[in-house]
């Protein structure tokens, strides 16, 4: 399988992630969408590293992405819980304090 196959999968996963963020009205889905997007990026990194790159760079990036995703998930979850406490809702549409 060539690199294009992986890139195609990655693109599709990315699109799914975006739709997940946009279309669903639950903040947890936003989180999950973000995870999908990150995974899509990771697939690209590793694939390009395997097929074209040299050294470790791509894989290293993937590792860092995973690490950051973990951190992001932890913080995001904490925020979600607080948002729930504050607004009694986890619909991002109702979380509008950022407006001003």
């Amino acid at each position, binding site marked *: *399988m*060539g*690199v*294009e*196959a*992986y890139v*195609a*999968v990655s*693109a*599709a*996963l990315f*699109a*799914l*992630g*975006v*739709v*997940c963020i946009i*279309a*669903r*009205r*639950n903040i*947890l*889905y936003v*989180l*999950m969408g973000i*995870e*999908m997007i990150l*995974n899509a990026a*990771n*697939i690209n990194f*590793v694939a390009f*590293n*395997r*097929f*074209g790159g040299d050294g*470790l760079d791509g*894989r*290293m990036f*993937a*590792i*860092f992405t*995973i*690490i*950051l*995703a*973990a*951190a992001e*998930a*932890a*913080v995001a*979850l*904490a*925020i*979600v*819980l*607080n948002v*729930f406490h*504050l607004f009694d809702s*986890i*619909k991002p549409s109702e979380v509008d304090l950022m407006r001003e």
Partner: protein
Amino acid sequence: MGTERAFYACLGLGTLAAAGWGTSTGGVEGLLFAVFATLTLGGGLVCLWERSVVRSAFALLATFGGVAGLFLLLGADFLAMAQILIYVGGILALILFGVMLSPPDMGERKLSRVGLGLAAVGGAFAWVGAKVAATVSWAQAPGPLAPPEQSHAREIGVGFLAADQYVVAFELAAVVLTVALVAAVYIARRKITDFEEPAETGGSA
């Protein structure tokens, strides 16, 4: 429930088609790729589709697993392991916690929204992808790829610790993780009143 059945039927058919396509183009490796890719994308689709957050979360499990499989196919065994450990073991668990701690809201999914969003975004991506595929000449590895000689885990470990490579980035990541986790604990711990009058945090701590 017609749409549900139709959805899963389409999914199954898609899986079969993918497996067939994969086997025909790349033999065993193609089959494996097809399986993992289907797992990845199918998981994503189900996640997007399902009304229940819990089910969506478990569908995401499949996505993560599929990605791990793709990593394996790409020869990144360490990454695959990390993917399973961190995503499946860590992040997913976190999301499930979140799911359990927040109220269920079964009525928020709207078919039209999801469908049309999928159609619009997917269409756009497909168009862009097609255009890119048509114009870009992909760099090909000369000949079949050699299997990795040694354990990637070792290679990566050396990469981390050698002074001239990724030490700074590694430390940076460590700092970010620490800060994020502390921050997460801190944020989760705060009371609602804190948001109203930050000046009084001193007393409530």
